[in-house]
């Protein structure tokens, strides 16, 4: 009986956990304030699409010990935007190593592979995104279909942009991959 009660309590503890898209603007607690300030300056420049200046600030944040997934991901995004795709891919991989189910990093990495013309690698990343964020996956699939890395690129996450209309047949073939 005690065992049954224990198992019931565990079952109640293990309530389903919703999957939320990561916020690429978040900063982990416990970082030194200079690194946080540099990261936030980087974010402002990033939002203003001042890619080169944002790179300087993100690099500064990393040098000050702000080695968290969002910093690597955002830096990679800026490098991709200035055409340094190989560097961006390396940084996305670091972000993903730190947080393996970082959905935006997978999305952007797929787009970086698309830029390099590596569609197989992009589709592998798409498979991961499809498991984590359906809305983002629809946008990424549209980008792959259009062979355009910037197509429905959402720098601030899936909640910030409209979802493209994708033909049902295209989504079915995506699901069957």
């Amino acid at each position, binding site marked *: 009986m005690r065992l049954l009660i224990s198992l019931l309590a565990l079952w109640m*503890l293990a*309530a389903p956990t919703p999957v939320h898209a990561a916020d690429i603007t978040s900063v982990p607690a416990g970082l030194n304030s200079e690194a946080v300030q540099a990261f936030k300056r980087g974010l402002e420049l990033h939002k203003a699409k001042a890619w080169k200046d944002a790179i300087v600030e993100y690099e500064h944040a990393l040098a000050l010990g702000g080695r968290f997934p969002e910093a690597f991901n955002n830096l990679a995004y800026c490098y991709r935007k200035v055409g340094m795709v190989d560097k961006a891919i390396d940084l996305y991989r670091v972000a993903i190593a730190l947080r*393996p189910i970082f959905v935006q990093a997978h999305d952007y990495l797929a787009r970086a592979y698309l830029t390099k013309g590596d569609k197989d690698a992009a589709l*592998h990343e798409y498979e991961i995104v499809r*498991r984590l964020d359906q809305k983002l996956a629809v946008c990424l699939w549209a980008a792959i279909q259009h062979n355009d890395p910037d197509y429905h690129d959402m720098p601030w996450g899936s909640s910030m942009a409209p979802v493209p209309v994708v033909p049902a047949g295209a989504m079915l073939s995506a699901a069957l991959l």
Partner: protein
Amino acid sequence: MRSPALVLIRLGPAIIFIIHGYLKLFGGLHDQTVALFLTVNLPNPELTAWFIGALELVGGVALLVGIFVRPLALLLAVEMAIAIYKVRLPQGFVGAWEFEFTLLLLLIGLAATDGRVGGVHNDHVVHTPKN
């Protein structure tokens, strides 16, 4: 004689594995688990995710009630070793993305394979009567 302290050590990972196994199987974390396995290039990620969820749930219950502790603890320890190698090692030992927790589960799992952390079968197998 079974030490209550050692039984408590067995129950810690039992609770952790039951909750994690349940979440992977029934708690809506299956897709996240598959995504993780795709990320670290584990073979057959879909099937592996179901297997790992079942292993954690069944292994956790086994640790809780003390049956088949040795083989299941060994399997769970192997799982933790793979988790450290494939996922946790690049994240460092301490900090927000540490592998210390996984290492702890691995070591307790290995300790449980010794057979002296309690359990119905272990008592019969390991402890020979004194003359």
